[in-house]
């Protein structure tokens, strides 16, 4: 039977998504749990993100040099949309982070570093938004973010 280009694309797409899934699903689930603090909801979001990823064209999926960073940006956009349309709001997510001060990799950070890192990494806030919130210059926020990143990196290396 003659198969159309669209049919071939649909048939091959799951293999590409599967290889991305095998490599990054555990990392992405760890990240989403960091955001929503609920494994069941995080698993639902993981399913939704990979299903949505299958709808993207190849150029959209592979345009970055680092696939994980590209996937993370895509996941953040999806989670932002969910946060806008469902019961989970950013303010609730912030509260969850305040409760989560004992997080293994964040424990070495001071309060400001923790706030800046979690707001950018998990909540997707811009440095400009954080500078307004904390009433500090954006240059200082970026410096804090750099320091936080360096501390976490060091913690992961040990």
């Amino acid at each position, binding site marked *: 039977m003659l198969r159309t280009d669209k049919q071939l694309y*649909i048939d091959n*797409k*799951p293999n590409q*998504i*599967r290889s991305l*899934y095998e490599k990054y*699903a*555990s*990392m*992405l*689930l*760890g*990240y989403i*749990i*960091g955001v929503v603090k609920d*494994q069941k*909801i995080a*698993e*639902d*979001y*993981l*399913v*939704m993100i*990979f*299903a*949505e990823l*299958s*709808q993207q064209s190849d150029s959209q999926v592979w345009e970055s*040099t*680092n696939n*994980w*960073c590209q996937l*993370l*940006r895509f996941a*953040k956009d999806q989670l932002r*949309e*969910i946060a806008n*349309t*469902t*019961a*989970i709001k950013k303010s609730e997510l912030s509260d969850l982070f305040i409760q989560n001060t004992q997080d293994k*990799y964040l424990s070495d950070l001071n309060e400001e570093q923790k706030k800046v890192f979690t707001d*950018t*990494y998990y909540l*997707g*806030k*811009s*440095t*400009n938004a*954080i500078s307004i919130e904390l009433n500090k210059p954006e240059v200082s*926020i*970026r*410096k*804090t*973010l*750099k320091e936080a*990143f360096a501390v*976490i*990196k060091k913690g*992961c290396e040990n």
Partner: protein
Amino acid sequence: MKINEYIESGILEAYVLGAASETEISELLDLKARHPQIGDALYELETDLERIAQHMAITPPPEIWTRIEDNINELATRPHVGRLRIDTSPPKEGQRGKQKSSQFIEVESQSNHMRIHKVWRWVFAAVFILGKIFLGFAIYFYLANRQSEEKIIELKTELRQQKHP
């Protein structure tokens, strides 16, 4: 602009974490094209971010991929469907039936294989061992029965010989 100062400013971290503005991103990409140090620093940061995520990784349960496949198949067969939404609030009474019929579609699997829970491994092993035990008993009782029948025949013959010497 001094490139080292730019790298040390934290703008690269903001970009990698998705916290940079559109203007900052376009400036960074422009500088990256002209200064290979920025490209190298970005590559290193992206690798670090991947390593951090690996340390925070949590393995998803095995059925997650099946759910993703089902979702992909559903989206592929319904090209004009809108974005899939996950509503965390429970559905109102009366809407439950309607939602169920519209959320799920019948999909006939093309695979000849089936997936079963790991617990069935022990059930199959128990059935196999019990089967062997029953077979052993069956053989034992069959042989014992045959032996007793032979003895009865022998005794009958002896009795017959004693009656008619």
